[in-house]
C-alpha cells in the first residue's frame, strides 16, 4: 500500500510537472500583450516597457520559463499583471469558496445520481426507469447557465424559496474568522451557527444546480453498471438459491457496480472543481472560476497558469482517491497489482 502510494504520488508529480510546462508555453502563444493591458490606455511606450521589465516579460522565453519554474518550486505562482497581487495568495483565498461549492454540489450529485440510478436499475424498462432516462436525457441537454437563470428567476425572484444570488453570505453578515475558508465550517468553529446556516442557505441553489447537472452521468453509469451486475452469473445463481432481492441487490448488484460508479463520481468531482466558472459568475460566487474568467480576458498569464496547476492538482488527487476507493469497494482489486 505504502509503496503504491509512493509510486502514485511520484507519477502524479511528474504529471503536474508536465502540465506546468505545457501551460507555460501554451499561455505564451495566446494573442495579446499583457504589459499593454497592465499599463492602461494612458500608457506611454516608456511605461509599457517599464511594465514589461517589472513583470519579466522582456526576458527571453527560456529565462521567463526558468523564473516561472523557480517560483513554482517555492509555491509562488507569480504576480497578477492586472491587480499587482500575489496569484498564490489570491488563489488560496478564493479556493475554499470553490471547494465548498463543489463539495456540496458533489454530495448532491452523488445522492441524486446514485438514488436515481438504483431506482432505474431495479425497475428496468418500467415507468421509473423510463422516467429516469427521460430526466437524464433532458438534463443532459440543458446548459448550466440556462438552468441557473431559470432557477434564479423562478425559485429566487418568483417563489422566494432561495436567497438572492449575491455571494457566500447575505448582506450585512460578516464572514466568520478564517480557519478553513469554508464559511459553513468556520461558522461552527467560531460558534456562529447563524453564519453557518446563512452560508448553507447561500450555497443551496448553486450547489443544487451543480448537483443536478453532475448527477446526470452518475445516474446513467449507476443504472447501466447495476443492471449489468444484476444480470451476471453470480446474481442469477443467488436468485437460484432463493436469496432475497435486497440481499442480491446489495451483494451482487451494487457492490459489483461500485467501482464503475466511483469512476463516474471521480469525473464529476473533477468537473465540479474546474467547471464552475459560469455558475460562480451568475451567483456572484468569489471562487477561482470567477478569478480565471477575468484573467483570461485580460491576458493575465500568471493567474491562468496558477489556475490550471491548482485544478490539475485537484484532478490528480481525485484520481488517486478514486483508485484507493476501488480496493475499498472491491477487495479483489489489489492496488498496484493484478486482480486476484
Amino acid at each position: 500500500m505504502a509503496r503504491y502510494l509512493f509510486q502514485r504520488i511520484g507519477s502524479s508529480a511528474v504529471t503536474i510537472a508536465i502540465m506546468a510546462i505545457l501551460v507555460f508555453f501554451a499561455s505564451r502563444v495566446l494573442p495579446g500583450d499583457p504589459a499593454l493591458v497592465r499599463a492602461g490606455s494612458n500608457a506611454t511606450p516608456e511605461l509599457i516597457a517599464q511594465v514589461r521589465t517589472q513583470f519579466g516579460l522582456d526576458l527571453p522565453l527560456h529565462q521567463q520559463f526558468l523564473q516561472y519554474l523557480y517560483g513554482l518550486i517555492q509555491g509562488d505562482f507569480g504576480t497578477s499583471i492586472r491587480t499587482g497581487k500575489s496569484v498564490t495568495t489570491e488563489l488560496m483565498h478564493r479556493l475554499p469558496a470553490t471547494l465548498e461549492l463543489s463539495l456540496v454540489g458533489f454530495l448532491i450529485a452523488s445522492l441524486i445520481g446514485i438514488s436515481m440510478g438504483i431506482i432505474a436499475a431495479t425497475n428496468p424498462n418500467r415507468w421509473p426507469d423510463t422516467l429516469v432516462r427521460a430526466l437524464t436525457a433532458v438534463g443532459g441537454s440543458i446548459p448550466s447557465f440556462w438552468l441557473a437563470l431559470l432557477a434564479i428567476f423562478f425559485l429566487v425572484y418568483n417563489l422566494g424559496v432561495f436567497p438572492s444570488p449575491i455571494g457566500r453570505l447575505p448582506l450585512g453578515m460578516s464572514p466568520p474568522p478564517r480557519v478553513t475558508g469554508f464559511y459553513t465550517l468556520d461558522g461552527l468553529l467560531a460558534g456562529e451557527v447563524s453564519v453557518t446556516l446563512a452560508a448553507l442557505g447561500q450555497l443551496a441553489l448553486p450547489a443544487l444546480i451543480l448537483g443536478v447537472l453532475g448527477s446526470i452521468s452518475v445516474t446513467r453509469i449507476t443504472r447501466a453498471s447495476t443492471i449489468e451486475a444484476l444480470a451476471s452469473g453470480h446474481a442469477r445463481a443467488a436468485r437460484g438459491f432463493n436469496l432475497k432481492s435486497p440481499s442480491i441487490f446489495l451483494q451482487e448488484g451494487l457492490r459489483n457496480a461500485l467501482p464503475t460508479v466511483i469512476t463516474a463520481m471521480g469525473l464529476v468531482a473533477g468537473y465540479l472543481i474546474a467547471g464552475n466558472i459560469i455558475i460562480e459568475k451568475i451567483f456572484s460566487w468569489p471562487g477561482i472560476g470567477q478569478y480565471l474568467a477575468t484573467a483570461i480576458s485580460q491576458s493575465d498569464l500568471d493567474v491562468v497558469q496558477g489556475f490550471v496547476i491548482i485544478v490539475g492538482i485537484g484532478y490528480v488527487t481525485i484520481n488517486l482517491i478514486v483508485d484507493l476507493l476501488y480496493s475499498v469497494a472491491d477487495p479483489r482489486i489489489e492496488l498496484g497489482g493484478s486482480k486476484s
Partner: protein
Amino acid sequence: MIHSRIARAAALGLVGLVALAGCQAEVPGEEAGQEVEVSRTFVIGAGEVEGLDPILTKSYTALQATANLYAGLVEEEFEPVEGGYLATTGKHINGVIESTETSEDGRTLTYRLVDGLTFADGTPLTSEDVVYSMKRTLSEASYVAGSSSIFMHISDAESQIVAIDESTIEVTLDAQSPALNKFLAQSTFSVVSADAGMANPGKDGSATDYFTNNATPSGPFALEDWAGAESMTLVKNSNYVHAEDVFAEKITILNMPDLDQRYLAVKNGDIDVALQLTPRLVQEAASDEALRVLTMPSGFFYFLGMNPKVAPFDNDVVRQAIAKAIPYEQLMEEVMLGQASPAYGIVPNNMETSIAPDDKTTQYETNTAAAKKLLEDAGLEGLAVELSVSSSDQISVDSAVYIQSALAEIGVTVNISKMAEVDFITSSYSQKLPFLIGNWVSSVQDPFFQMRAVLLTDRATNQTGFSNAKFDELVLTGIDEGDDAERERLSALAQQIVIDEAAFVNLFAMDTSVVTRADVSGIALRSDQLFQLRYLTRE
C-alpha cells in the same frame, strides 16, 4: 424497499436544503443585533474591487472605491441638474486645502492645508502626506505620471513639490498649467499617508503593494471591511474635511459580475444601486415603477477608425463616403436604445470648446445616396474591407452589424472580425487594425488632453493611425495656452481638421446610466464618469 428508503432520504435531504435556504433568507444582519440606520445605508451592485492604490488602480469598481476613500487638494463642485442627479459645474472647490496663492506668473502655487486635518484613523494629515502623495503620482510607479507631468508642467517632482512647513506646500511649475486643477481633482492625486507608505516601501520603493492591499482613507469614507472578491464596505469618515456634506453612513459595494443578476437584484430590492447595466436592462428598468433610471450625458464615446496609411482608407474619398453612410441615428436608437447622444467630432458635445452647433447634430449627416455617388464618381466600386471589433464589447459588435448593412448599400462589403479583448487592445494600440470600432473616455475632461491621447501622431493610444502635422501643432500649443478664447480657437481648428480628414468618425457618446431603487437619490457623476457617493440619500 431499499430504493424507496434511499429515495425518501434523498427527498428529505433536498427538502432540508431548501428549508435551510428559506430559513436564513430573511435575517441578514439581525443576528449580530446591530442597529443599522437603514435610510443611510446603501448597497451598490458593481464589479470587484481588485486593488486600492490610487496610482495603479484601473478597473471601474476599484476606481470607484478609491475615489470615495481619498480626498485631494481640490475637488469637483456639483450641482443638481435636470434629470434628478448631481453633475459637475466645471469648477473646483477646496479639498484638504483652505487656500491657494498663485504667483504673478502663475508658476508658483502655495497651498495651505485646513488646520487639524487627520486621516480616518486619527493620525494627522500634514503637508508631508500631500507632497509624498503627489510625488508618488508623478513617479515611475504611476500609470498616469507621463501625461500628468506634461499637462501640469512638473518635469521634476522631487524638486518642484516641497513642504514649506507642516501645513504649507509649494508647487513650482515649468510653465503655467491651465489644466492643473483638473488633474489635481483626479483620484490619482489622492492624499495617502506618507508614514504608512514609507514604513511599507515594498520592492519598488513606492509602496504599491501596500496601497494595493490597504487604504489610509482621507476622503468621505473609511474602509470598514474588505471581504476579498465579495464586497467592500465603506463607512462615513467623520474626520473628512467636508464630513458635514457626507449624507450616506454606510455603503457596501457588492461584486456582482453577471449584469442580469445585478439588474434582478436591484429590481428585487436586494441592492439599492446597479451600475454599468446594458442598454437593454436599463430600458427594461425604465418601465418598473419601483426603480429610477438616471441617464447622464458622458464623454464616453464610440468611434469608427480608418487608418489613412492603409488602402483603401488612404483614399480621402473612401473615408468620406463611409463617414456619410454611417447610420448614426439608427445606432443611437437601436443599438443604444436611446441611451446615447450625438458626438460631434473628437471633442464630444458636452466637453468645453466643442464645435458642435447644438446637442443634436452629428459631424457627418447620414446620406447614403451621396456616399454612393462619391464612390461611383471616383470609380471606387466593389470595395471589400474588414471591420475589427472586440468580441467582449457587445455595443461594438452590434454597431458593426448595422455599419456592415449600411455600407453594403453603398457597395462596400464588410467582413466583421470579432477579436478577443486583449488581442483587440494590443492590435489597435499598435495601429495594426486599419478599420475598427473603438471607444474612449478621458479621465481628465479636457479637450487637449482628449485630442492628444486619441489622435496625436504616434501617440501610444492613437488607435487609428491618424497623423496630421497641423493638428499636432494646434494640440501641443493648446496644452500650454492659458487664454480661454485662444484655447477655444485652437481647439476648434484642431477639431475641424479631424472632421475634414474623416479618419476618426465619432459614432455616438454613450450616456452613463444608473438604475436605483425609486427612493434613492443623490447620485453625483464626476467628470471622470465615477460616482461621488457621499450625497446618496433616500427620499
